[in-house]
């Protein structure tokens, strides 16, 4: 049985690597290697909140290790959607049974920076150990102390993650061997202490690249060449945040800082998981750290990524009566099947966003400035219409409601097309099937990953065929030899 297991994982790994999809394997430095900057340099106070707590905030631990049942933070259970399936964030409170209460510092470190858990073995890189591996020893210790001493132990048994074949935990040995260093950001020459601090916050603690840096076919980071250049993650698009003009190159420092702190500026609104990151992490960073993050992002190597359409300066006026006919008879009153983007926009959207897309001031971007509208892919427009935007306690006055129960996929496609054409100057329309794939989270996922299950089985069967065929051949030869 065990032999079969090994054979399966080995052939899966073989299939992946042999298929020629591997990226250059960067040096897999030991976990303690190359700290980029020390937390101490930023002058973090050791008075409350404790240093460990600040590291937990900057590390955005609470976003994933949340308890969706509403329990206290860090007790886990939140399911992170990945192309391979749901990965459940563990309970990282000090509860000895269901949490990490019995762990030594070394064991904690091995999980945090090495990707191997005392309890469950190899972690999936949904846990950003490929970024955390560059944390300083001091910070690892401070975080350990915080979780052990300050966070209340909570008993909460978290469901096991079962991604199934071929994505087995044991197969992660091979992934780690090849890619655990892939998240290493380019080193900046002559970086000031502030920029170094910013890089530590962005690339190590904040693990921004886990979402914003594109991934290769084996989900390894492309930080070497396209660091922070924008990527599809889950069912949202994490935009280019490199210093290129298609990234944040044209943002002022003040805008960037305001966005990190409040989740909204003239050209962007933090939706999806970015909203969460702003709420539980970025908005709580000290001012000096926010300045450091801004300084570093402005200093990152520019990555062109997907182009951002120029701002549409003047939106042509529209006469609502021209697209809103008087209802002809009673049937028209409840016929809500229209896929006329103009009509839908005027009825469902214009009360907040204005007929010309310029309203909703204070609520977030005008549609003509919005980076999501001007992006070359429609993912975030579709997501925003469907799921809305809610910054929670950060902004109690503005919220975009979800339109999921009011509009079907074709209507969401029609509004997305209308909004992008009219306010983003992007002529390409969004199809209903695109909306479906965006919402399912299968949009723009590597073909290999989407099809990995049957491919791996195919590889396994082929492997068996080779083994059995070879065995038969040998047996036959042996028989022939005997016969001779």
């Amino acid at each position: 049985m065990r032999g079969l297991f090994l054979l399966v994982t080995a052939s899966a790994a073989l299939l992946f690597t042999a298929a020629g999809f591997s990226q250059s394997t960067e040096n897999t430095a030991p976990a303690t290697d190359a700290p980029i900057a020390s937390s101490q340099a930023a002058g973090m106070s050791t008075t409350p909140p404790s240093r460990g707590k600040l590291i937990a905030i900057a590390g955005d631990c609470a976003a994933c290790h949340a308890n969706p049942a509403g329990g206290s933070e860090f007790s886990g259970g939140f399911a992170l959607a990945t192309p391979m399936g749901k990965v459940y964030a563990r309970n990282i409170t000090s509860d000895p049974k269901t949490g990490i209460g019995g762990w030594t510092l070394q064991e904690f470190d091995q999980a945090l920076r090495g990707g191997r858990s005392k309890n469950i073995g190899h972690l999936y890189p949904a846990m950003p150990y490929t970024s955390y591996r560059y944390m300083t020893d001091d910070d690892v210790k401070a975080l350990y102390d915080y979780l052990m001493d300050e966070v209340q132990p909570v008993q909460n048994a978290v469901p096991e993650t079962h991604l199934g074949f071929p994505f087995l935990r044991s197969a992660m040995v091979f992934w780690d061997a090849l890619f655990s260093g892939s998240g290493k950001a380019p080193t900046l020459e002559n970086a000031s202490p502030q920029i170094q601090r910013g890089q530590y916050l962005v690339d190590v603690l904040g693990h921004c690249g886990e979402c914003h840096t594109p991934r290769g076919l084996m989900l390894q980071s492309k930080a070497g060449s396209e660091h922070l250049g924008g990527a599809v993650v889950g069912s949202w698009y994490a935009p280019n945040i490199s210093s290129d003009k298609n990234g944040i190159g044209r943002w002022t420092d003040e805008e960037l800082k305001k966005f990190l702190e409040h989740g909204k500026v003239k050209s962007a609104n933090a939706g999806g998981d970015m909203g969460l990151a702003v709420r539980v992490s970025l908005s709580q960073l000290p001012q000096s750290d926010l300045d450091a993050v801004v300084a570093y992002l402005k200093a990152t190597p520019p990555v062109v990524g997907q182009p951002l359409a120029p701002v549409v300066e003047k939106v042509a006026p529209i006469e609502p009566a021209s697209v809103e006919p008087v209802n002809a008879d009673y049937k028209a009153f409840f016929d809500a099947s229209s896929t006329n983007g103009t009509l839908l926009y005027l009825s469902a959207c214009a009360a907040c966003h204005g007929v010309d897309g310029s309203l909703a001031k204070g609520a977030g971007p005008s549609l003509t400035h919005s980076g999501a509208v001007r992006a070359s892919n429609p993912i975030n427009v579709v997501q925003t219409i469907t799921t809305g935007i809610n910054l929670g306690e950060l902004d109690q006055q503005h919220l975009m409601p979800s339109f999921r129960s009011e509009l079907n996929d074709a209507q969401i496609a029609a509004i997305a097309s209308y909004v992008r054409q009219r306010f983003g100057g992007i002529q390409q329309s969004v199809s209903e099937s695109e909306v479906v794939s965006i919402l399912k989270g299968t949009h723009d996922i590597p073909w290999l990953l989407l099809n990995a299950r049957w491919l791996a089985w195919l590889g396994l069967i082929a492997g068996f065929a080779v083994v059995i065929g070879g065995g038969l051949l040998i047996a036959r030869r042996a028989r022939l030899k005997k016969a001779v």
Partner: protein
Amino acid sequence: MAEYDADVIVIGAGGLGAVVALQAAKAGKSVIMLEAGPEIPNWKVIQNWRSSPRKDNFVAPYGDYPWAPNSYTKGYLDKDIDTLRWPGTVRAVGGTSRHWTGITWRFLPEDFKLQSTHGVGRDWPIGYDDLEPFYTEAEYFIGVSGMDSDDQSGKHAGLAYPHRSKPYPMSPEAKPYSVQRLQMRLAPMGMRIIHAPCARASRNYDGRPACIGNNLCQQPECPIGAKFSGEMAVEKARAAGVKLRSEVVVDTLKKDGSGKITSLSYQTRDGVRQTLKAKTYVIAGHALETPKLLLMNELANRSGQLGRNLMVHPGFASFFEVDEPLWQGRGQYNHAIMVNWRSGDHRKESAAFTMSPWNVNKTADLTNILLQSKLIGSKLDAAIPEAVGRTVMMLSILEDLANPDNGVSLNPNWKDALGLPGLHFKYRVADYTKACLPNIFNDSANIAQAMGVKKAPMLEYFITHGHLMGTVMMGDDPSNSVVDRNLRCHDHENLFLVTTGVYPSSTAVNPTLTGYALAFRAGHYIAAEV
């Protein structure tokens, strides 16, 4: 085949029916909701309203369907009334509580004891304390903005009243300019203008955005979903597993010898019939359709009170041209209310009333008036905004008393597309109600004096608010009421009526929150029993 199609069937998918359905579903019961009208998304209602030439008919945007007539369908109500208008009803998923201003008062403790306190009208079989926990539950469900420290009775200056077990979920929205000015200038006359608690979110609440003052609260519906509305309650019920069938009209209820309801049957809008069985039946068809269904089936009428005691809340509207532009029509549709006459000993002789500066833009009405004048051309053009800016509409809600002569009965001479009858609708404003007019005129004179009004009110008229009550009254005595204190029919142990139609008295404030509170109370009761 299973013995029952569901544990509970709720007839009428409005806000109140949805609350009962939700409670039962949360308790693990199977629930079907049946709705005569169609499903219409909010954006479609907005579009219907914008493209409609009939802006004066508030329920027109929800449609007028041959198989599900509403109270404004031509001929459906055979009216014998002495008011200018009559209440609107909505036949659509979400019900009439989609078309509401969203004002969410609690009734006062004394409102439940009108007869024993003032010797008029009827007492309720339950009191404020019985309902208080459910008021709270309803307020948090709906998401109510209100002022915890207000005396809402006008009689307990400086003290919060009535008492509450929990604060309002949200504080009031920002005060519209016109309200600020009116409060400042009317306070010296002793007029207590307070915030009207409402279902508009003043901050993001339960996935709803905060109100941005579109001023369309009930004309036809909040365009951004800041105000709670009946279809949101239905959405919550469906999320909890309640099955909804729309465009089906229940017209038949069958009972056994003991009076228990054994089955119901409905027609689809094309006349296809289906029969369903449940353990418990709930009719939540508002105060017209609920008695109509029972009258059609000769049920629940041991008392002879079925369909009687209709109350509609007459209102009295006056328009004043004040000496400064207040530009009513910016901000919330109805934000502030004068409560001086909401409670007190005067109720022995004359109706309680509340009066509010109705924050709407009256351009159409005022233009019509100015067109009758001699003004033409640029002078007319200038006169319109001048008049609109300085016109204040004061609108009151007058307490109504139950009178068995007011009510609805079947009108077999009118038939809808499915062959079902129309309704005779009779209403007279009570003398008790009219007796409060001197108090209103006195207040009007004070308002005129304080606001520098030089002319008599431009317009004055009786309207009725869209507040239907009384047709299936609740009480402990089966000889003079239709349902008991738990909203169960005296005559049918597995039939409940969840509607504002059960109110024994009307009070002088908007009835909806009390309806939701009663629905929560009945919902818990039904969920535990079935």
